[in-house]
């Protein structure tokens, strides 16, 4: 730890000394992005940036000229002028002209960004504390997307992976060459769905459905990473977005896979599971969906997120335990997991919670019990 701190410090110092060389891979500027809109935005950004630079050069130039030339120690005698209507008018008029020149392209880009008509693919995005849900409208495909960076990486117990805090279990897959419309909303607090490479950032607000769109050109297939941009609670920094752009054909195949997977999952719930199988599956589900709030050892977090180890619900009240996982607790971050976990996963995680960290109830919750509880 100390070693790494020093390594970081020395790289900072070196970075300052050899700034131009080191800065190349530091990420200094806005990404140009892959869509027409993101490129237009980048151009607007650079235009206004250079306008500011030139105004700065002129204003600070005059100022530093005065600071060096008109100083008392050089014998400068103060002049007495303190008014000039001409100058005042000039430096009101010039900025006005510059601003109008700037407003014209900004307006046209904004109009383009707001045109969500004629979309080929519609994806509803729902923000939850602290994960994203994607539903492909009219395709019967939908899933949740959770952070996969482990708590061991976050708390510095293991090396951090290459895509630290920017990796998820289920990518939102989109076709290239098609106009994709995003319908963005939230299930609890306000989030914001942001993917810099396509310049889409829209707040996800409960009770609202916001629209945005992107058209990723063919040939730009790949993985693109983004983040939640609006403070949404404790794990705001831990709900990234990974978008996978694939060709239109691959997209169709992916949709079919998703639908087939769902059928298989429903069939699996009717099978038999041993206690050991459920415990193994439950530990995985717990780490991904529950540990963020309830702690890796079921110890809870602060006063907001109760401990599960030794909790009365996990030790005694099995029906209540099943109910809170299926239906959630309104007004808290404890959401309904019906839509994001399969019956097998819910059974497994409840079994796990009732038998881990000293909660030795010895009870097994089967998928059939979950199916019955949902009725």
């Amino acid at each position, binding site marked *: 730890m100390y070693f790494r701190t020093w390594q970081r410090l020395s790289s900072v110092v070196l970075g300052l000394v050899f700034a131009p060389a080191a800065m190349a891979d530091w990420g200094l500027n806005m990404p140009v992005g892959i869509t027409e809109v993101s490129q237009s*935005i980048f151009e607007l950004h650079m235009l206004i940036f250079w306008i500011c630079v030139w105004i700065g050069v002129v204003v600070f130039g005059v100022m530093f000229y005065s600071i060096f030339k008109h100083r008392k120690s050089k014998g*400068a005698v*103060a002049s007495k002028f303190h008014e000039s209507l001409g100058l005042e008018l000039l430096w009101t008029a010039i900025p006005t002209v510059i601003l109008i020149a700037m407003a014209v392209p900004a307006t046209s880009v904004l109009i383009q960004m707001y045109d969500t008509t004629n979309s080929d693919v519609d994806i509803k995005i729902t923000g939850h504390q602290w994960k994203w849900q994607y539903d492909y409208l009219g395709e019967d495909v939908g899933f949740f997307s959770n952070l996969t960076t482990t708590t061991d990486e976050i708390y510095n117990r293991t090396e951090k992976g290459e895509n630290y805090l920017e990796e998820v279990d289920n990518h939102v897959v989109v076709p290239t060459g098609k106009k994709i419309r995003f319908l963005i909303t939230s299930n609890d607090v306000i989030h914001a769905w942001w993917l810099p490479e396509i310049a889409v950032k829209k707040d996800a607000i409960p009770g609202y459905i916001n629209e945005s769109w992107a058209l990723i050109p063919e040939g730009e297939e790949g993985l693109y990473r983004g983040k939640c941009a609006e403070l949404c609670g404790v794990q705001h920094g831990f709900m990234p977005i990974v978008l996978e752009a694939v060709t239109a054909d691959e997209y169709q195949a992916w949709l079919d896979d998703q639908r087939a997977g769902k059928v298989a999952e429903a069939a699996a719930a009717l099978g038999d599971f041993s206690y050991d199988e459920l415990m193994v599956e439950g530990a995985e589900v717990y780490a991904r969906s529950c540990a963020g709030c309830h702690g890796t050892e079921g110890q809870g977090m*602060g006063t907001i997120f109760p401990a599960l180890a030794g909790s009365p619900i996990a030790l005694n009240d099995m029906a209540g335990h099943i109910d809170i996982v299926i239906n959630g607790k309104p007004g808290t971050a404890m959401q309904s997991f019906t839509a994001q976990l399969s019956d097998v996963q819910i059974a497994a995680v409840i079994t796990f919670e009732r038998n881990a960290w000293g909660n030795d109830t010895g009870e097994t919750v089967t998928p059939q019990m979950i199916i019955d509880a949902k009725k």
Partner: protein
Amino acid sequence: MTTATASHDDHGHHGPAKGIMRWVLTTNHKDIGSMYLWFSFAMLLTGGVMALIVRAELFQPGMQLIRPEFYNQMTTMHGLIMVFGAIMPAFVGLANWMVPLMIGAPDMALPRMNNWSFWILPFAFGMLLFTLFTEAGAPNFGWTFYAPLSTTYAPSSVTYFIFGVHMMGISSIMGAINIIVTILNLRAPGMTLMKMPLFVWTWFITAYLLVAVMPVLAGVVTMMLMDIHYGTAFFDAAGGGDPVLFQHVFWFFGHPEVYIMILPAFGIVSQIIPTFARKPLFGYASMVYATSSIAFLSFIVWAHHMFTVGLPLQTELFFMYATMLIAIPTGVKVFNWVSTMFRGSMTFETPMLFAIAFVVLFTIGGFSGLMLSIAPADFQYHDTYFVVAHFHYVLVPGALFGIIAGVYYWLPKWTGHYYNENLGKFHFWMSFIGVNITFFPMHFIGLAGMPRRIPDYALQFADFNAIATVGAFIFGFSQLIFLFLLIKTIRGGEKATDRVWEGAEGLEWTIPSPAPYHTFAEPPHVK
């Protein structure tokens, strides 16, 4: 900060009372001004420690020192304390001290209310800070406290927060009314409005902004209180309410609030630059008009904080154009300051250094503000560190440097002693270097895609975050130099002349240094 010299001067007034009750019961504008300034300095250090906790955690990727839930409490409390506890009371303190001296008034118009305005504040902030030690923890929803994170999903301490905001609001409104009444009624004969020093003018306009928008803030927190405890659903979509309404109401307060925190600093800088350039302020009248225009525009630009909430296109365009307009009067001010320096006879004492740094760095903050006003580009900037860089540039080397410049400028008048110039310059250079190392890299990490208000970040942001943290510690600890200098100057030092600065103009420089406990019992005549 006033010395306890009881001045049995020619008017036969009595000096201050002895002991602690002097400060509790005082109605003297100088005592109350000093208390405001010390209070705001204490809050600056408190909020500063919180910022350093935040920066220390962000030094490296991964969670090292604190947990995410405490991180959110730190960012929230840092923002609230700096805005409402450090910057605003510091300006009120300067106004208390200087407005009567600059317009030739014997005191503030409403001295007892003045006492009350101040004494509310320690209780308001005591209550806010005490939530840190409760089981639920302090407010954790950001200083902008967007619903429903601050209502349905808030920790129970939110109720204390609401009560605290109400108290701060009452204090601010009373302080503002006092300043307006003083300026309108207690000016010395001959001191017409267009002869008032610019610090008085900017505060006059600021006070109207306060009276206009603090009740809006009170309204929005009351709506939250109703939602939380009395079953209403103003901001709850499930009950037919509207979370976006919160943002409209909050920013209708919030944007004028931004100018409340900068206009008095414009005034201070407009006093200092002519003094050290030994040349009258260029374009006095246009400065007054520009300040008024900025104040007016501040009421019609609020939704530029909400470009990504899904406003209709026409609304978006209106707020973009209105926001861009602000650049014009702000530009006029900067051009006027530069023209004041041009062909002057400049010296660079500490107040002037801070004032020049203000002009340069505030302008950089203004440039990033202009970039943010371009709505399409704002979709990329919004809620990133680019925004953090922007508002810290206008608030730290902007508002805070303005305050510090004012303190150095008037300190000899308050204490009767010159401060140590070398120590002052050391403080300046450490602050100047620290502030830029802290906030300049934030432009880069923001553009590269780092969202604000996150306790941990992806690896590509590591280097600039480490640099920013180093800068923050330099800047933070430099303020201890300032504390040391202040105490040293109060206790002694070279005797200050009445005029203090060679180029100083104005009524405050016609009275003795240190300023007697009672001044202008007989109004001066202004030619």
